[in-house]
């Protein structure tokens, strides 16, 4: 609980998801509602000016819509210390460059954004510059938020101005030299920041465009699901192909159509279930993604979640799964025979551990009892090249998030205290290679390296 890591999100608040849907939906029907909604966010594209649409709504509606959008953007995750006052900031964000402390974004005039204008707020969201013009560190996902429309930015701003002021001074960042020099950000922005609102693809459906807007913009999914380099930048050519989350030792899987690692074999319904309830027939969310579902996605409307799933299903796979393989995978080169007998021995031990500890929930054949006890057979997160997630799940366990659709989730026990590194390496190797799974074996060292990482 020491803090949030740069690429973890969350959120809190009351949901107003189907606000527009509940007001308009029953009257004009689903399709017409969709058009009306689209007109709001596409704004000028359909010949309706954003300000006209804005003015048409009462301020209460704007605030309610802003709250919904703030959920979609998961503002609360970083700007609220769990159990503390909403949007008071000061949550530590541990990065490879030092620790940042998020600012107060409550309506307080002295310490929050009470004196800001909607224009200044939009500049922050859209261009990564603070009220005084200073450059913001990209821990704030303005590379994604730049795609948010002015109308949506204004709604979020109206909502933030409506929350109670928190009288709490911001905490100074603790960044190491040279990262504490903000002028370095100019170079980073030149390389990695592309300013510009979302431009709808007219060859795609309204639903697809809505999903793309949410995934690329407020959802800031690429912060974790696109690999970042040593400079903290990410390459568009590897968009959504997955990556290790720095400082957190969780691997954000590929969201592309890659059959081995991505969503290629997932149905739209399974993706929707996972995002909205936290569990599905293909797997459940744990770790950082449990936080995203808990704080943000569970509050989104069924239509918006479906749009996101529709968009995600169309993401192309550009390159092969390049996530780092566990160290043991290379041992085959050292001597095939030795490796084969070692693999056999590991498999035997793993099978024994599996039968004793895992089969009661996940089944003798790894089919699980979905959605509550996830299947391990044909589960991408078990067999993908990086073995970080299955190793950590065995070490620290985890509960799926408690959501409106799944308020009493089931949990996986931690095994760090009862199984040694050798047994865990063996059982993870077993589940990665049994029942037709084709993951690589993991080594005792792989497990040992992760054992000392605190549960988070």
């Amino acid at each position, binding site marked *: 609980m020491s803090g949030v890591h740069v690429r973890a999100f969350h959120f809190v608040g009351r949901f107003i998801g189907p606000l527009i849907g509940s007001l308009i939906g029953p009257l004009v029907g689903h399709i017409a509602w969709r058009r009306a909604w689209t007109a709001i966010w596409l704004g000028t594209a359909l010949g309706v000016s954003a300000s006209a649409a804005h003015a048409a709504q009462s301020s209460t509606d704007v605030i309610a819509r802003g709250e919904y959008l703030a959920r979609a953007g998961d503002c609360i995750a970083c700007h609220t210390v*769990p159990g503390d006052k909403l949007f008071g900031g000061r949550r530590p964000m541990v990065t490879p460059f030092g620790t940042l402390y998020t600012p107060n974004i409550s309506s307080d005039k002295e310490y929050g954004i009470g004196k800001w204008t909607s224009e200044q707020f939009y500049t922050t969201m859209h261009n990564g510059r603070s009220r005084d013009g200073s450059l913001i560190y990209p821990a704030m996902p303005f590379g994604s938020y730049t795609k948010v429309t002015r109308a949506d930015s204004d709604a979020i701003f109206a909502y933030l101005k409506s929350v109670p002021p928190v009288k709490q001074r911001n905490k100074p960042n603790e960044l190491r030299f040279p990262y504490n020099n903000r002028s370095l950000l100019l170079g980073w922005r030149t390389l990695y920041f592309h300013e510009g609102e979302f431009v709808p693809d007219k060859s795609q459906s309204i639903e697809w465009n809505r999903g793309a807007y949410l995934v690329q913009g407020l959802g800031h999914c690429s912060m974790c699901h696109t690999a970042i380099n040593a400079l903290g930048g990410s390459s568009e050519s590897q968009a959504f192909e997955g990556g290790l989350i720095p400082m957190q030792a969780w691997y954000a899987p590929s969201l592309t159509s890659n059959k081995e690692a991505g969503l290629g074999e997932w149905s739209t319904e399974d993706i929707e279930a996972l995002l909205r309830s936290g569990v599905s027939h293909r797997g459940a969310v744990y770790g950082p993604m449990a936080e995203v579902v808990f704080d943000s996605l569970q509050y989104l409307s069924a239509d918006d979640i479906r749009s996101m799933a529709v968009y995600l299903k169309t993401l192309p796979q550009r390159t092969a799964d390049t996530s780092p393989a566990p160290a043991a995978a290379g041992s085959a080169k050292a001597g095939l025979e030795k490796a084969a007998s070692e693999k056999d021995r590991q498999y035997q031990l793993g099978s024994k551990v599996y039968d004793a500890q895992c089969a009661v929930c996940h089944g003798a054949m790894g089919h699980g009892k979905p959605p509550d006890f996830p299947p391990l057979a044909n589960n991408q997160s078990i067999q993908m090249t990086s073995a970080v997630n299955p190793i950590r799940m065995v070490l620290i366990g985890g*509960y799926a998030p408690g959501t409106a659709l799944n308020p009493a989730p089931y949990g996986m026990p931690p095994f760090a205290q009862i199984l040694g590194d050798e047994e865990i390496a063996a059982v993870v190797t077993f589940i990665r290679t049994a029942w037709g799974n084709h993951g690589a074996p993991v080594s005792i060292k792989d497990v040992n390296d992760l054992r000392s990482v605190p549960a988070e």
Partner: protein
Amino acid sequence: MRRHLKWLILASLIFSAGRAFPQDASDERAPDTMQARVLACAACHGQQGQGTNNDYFPRLAGKPAGYLYNQLLAFKEGRRKYPPMNYLLAYLPDPYLQRIADYFAQERPPFPSLPAPSVGADVLARGQRLVTSGDPDHHIPACASCHGAALTGMEPAIPGLLGLHSEYISSQLGAWRYGTRTAAAPDCMQLVAARLTDDDVTAVAAWLSSLPAPSSASPVQRDAIKMPLACGSEPK
């Protein structure tokens, strides 16, 4: 007609055979019980919350639900710090934490036989004195004056002290003393623990862990005990 019947039987056989595989594969659901939902807790605390051989994972069974809920909430919000617990509870809604607390509060598994404390008779005697009579000279109330003569706690939020390893008890008293474990103000346990010496802690922990199982594991009713000091966790 008979021929039709034959085909019908054959078709139904094929149909049911065809359904058999998916049922085996994935149609089985997890049991819709709290016992199945708290399997994640069982690895350290035992299936019924009876505790395990590990010195530092406490027995949960039979402690008042209000006490267990307060602890779950404190772990969730990081006020009580233990990363494996903080992580497990971080994304569970408060009403569900209450259900988990209720589940373990209702369980009555047998008490474990704990290892005999490796301390001398004088230390045990000191522990017994502190537990049953306290130390008035140092303004230390007896454990029993809040946790009950049988030391099984009081509803809704004062825990029982039996069936716990001495290492667990001394580490918790240490955590109160150094402020790493806190509770709602007025934090009575912090006040009491601050008055204990290291030797007091060792003695109390040894004596408590040496006690046999109580005849009834249930905590006493709310307000059954007139407490010598106010506790924020125990509503008046």
